[in-house]
């Protein structure tokens, strides 16, 4: 008898009244929640905007097998409340040595293995992001802004923290061009398929 697997769903939408109320990010978060409950997971949740306790968040991360960040893209990153969350939670996990034991380097050779001191091996992390940017602006060297970069390249600012702690990074899921020509309904509909494939769940 194995105990139920756990997923931590972090929603880091920041409300801008009458402009960005968070309905879209709530919808994706809910889709993920429904999917994992259906698959027999225990679901832990954090809505960053509603407040949190850094030490509790560390414990949730330790309990969870899978962590998913639901975020809007504000100025090419998560809203600032998310970086505050990361600085607080990861600092706590660093100081208590619960997330990592160090940066992985040995005294003999300070040039090697930087980023292998994590204690979170076996866990998986995924970002689900909503963008104003259109899909066509990624992966195309002729595009002015991203110059051929992928969404994963732009989201490295977020995923690298998890990799630093030993967590495996899973292919991100993105809803593009949400103010103009995006296919929001289609992206919501396909989200469970992506989760099933990305996490290799039956």
């Amino acid at each position, binding site marked *: 008898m194995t105990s139920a697997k756990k997923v931590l769903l972090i929603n880091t939408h920041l409300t801008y009244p009458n402009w960005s109320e968070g309905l879209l990010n709530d919808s994706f978060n809910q889709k993920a929640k429904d999917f994992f409950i259906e698959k027999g997971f225990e679901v832990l949740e954090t809505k960053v905007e509603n407040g949190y306790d850094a030490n509790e968040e560390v414990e949730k991360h330790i309990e969870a097998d899978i962590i998913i960040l639901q975020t809007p893209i504000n*100025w090419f990153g998560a809203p600032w409340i998310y970086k505050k969350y990361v600085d607080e939670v990861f600092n706590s996990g660093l100081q208590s040595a619960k997330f990592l034991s160090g940066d992985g380097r040995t005294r003999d050779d300070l040039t090697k293995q930087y980023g292998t001191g994590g204690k979170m091996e076996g866990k998986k992390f995924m970002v689900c992001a909503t963008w104003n940017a259109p899909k066509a602006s990624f992966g195309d060297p002729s595009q002015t802004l991203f110059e051929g970069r992928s969404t994963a390249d732009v989201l490295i600012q977020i995923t*690298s923290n998890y990799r630093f702690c030993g967590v495996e990074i899973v292919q991100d899921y993105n809803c593009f061009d949400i103010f103009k020509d995006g296919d929001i309904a289609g992206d919501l509909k396909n989200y469970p398929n992506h989760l099933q494939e990305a996490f290799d769940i039956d």
Partner: protein
Amino acid sequence: MKYKIFPTLIILLLVFSVKINAQTTLIEFSKKKTVLLINAHLTYPGLSEGKLNNAFHAKAKEFFLSQNFNVLETKIEDSYHVDEEVEKHLKADIVVLQTPVNWENTPWIYKKYVDEVFTSAMKSQKFLSGDGRSETNPSKEYGTGGKMQGKLFLLSATWNAPEESFNNAKQPLWKGKSADDALFNIGANYSFIGYTVLPGYFCYDVFHNTHIKEDLENYPKYLKKVFGL
């Protein structure tokens, strides 16, 4: 004695006022350039007091003053006024961000600064007129709606990560990415509004303190080269 000091003082004053006048004329003639120096360090008492970032910031300030720039400064931790920050960006020809790397990016107070300042300037259309896409071809030219063309942005960052962890596909964390790739999101905001983003200046492995002194010494040379001064 008193009688001797008095004339000397008068002569000194005269000399100085002539000098000041000459300088002012020169400045007006060459349209003095402006640089905005932003310091995003966040203090963690006993762990990170900000001395290293202050040292780089001071080096940059000294350099730009020696090049006869008008220097504007913002220390985010000491608070700021959003509208004033927008105006400082409009005035400045060059923006230099000095930041420590905390959890693979800037301290959170910097992202708060960006969300507030850039959102304000987007709504007032002072930094950009839109995302650059046209109605006729919405898949093209995303990120070309900026109004800040001709301005330059430079990032100067201090890392715990060693230099060897970058640009090497065998390294476990960055897997071949550069330090500029890791911090791409910061420059992207400036590109999006029309700036030219220059390759960053990086001081690595700061807790082992093997080349901080050289990195500080070489910083003005880098500034001179990268800005073509």
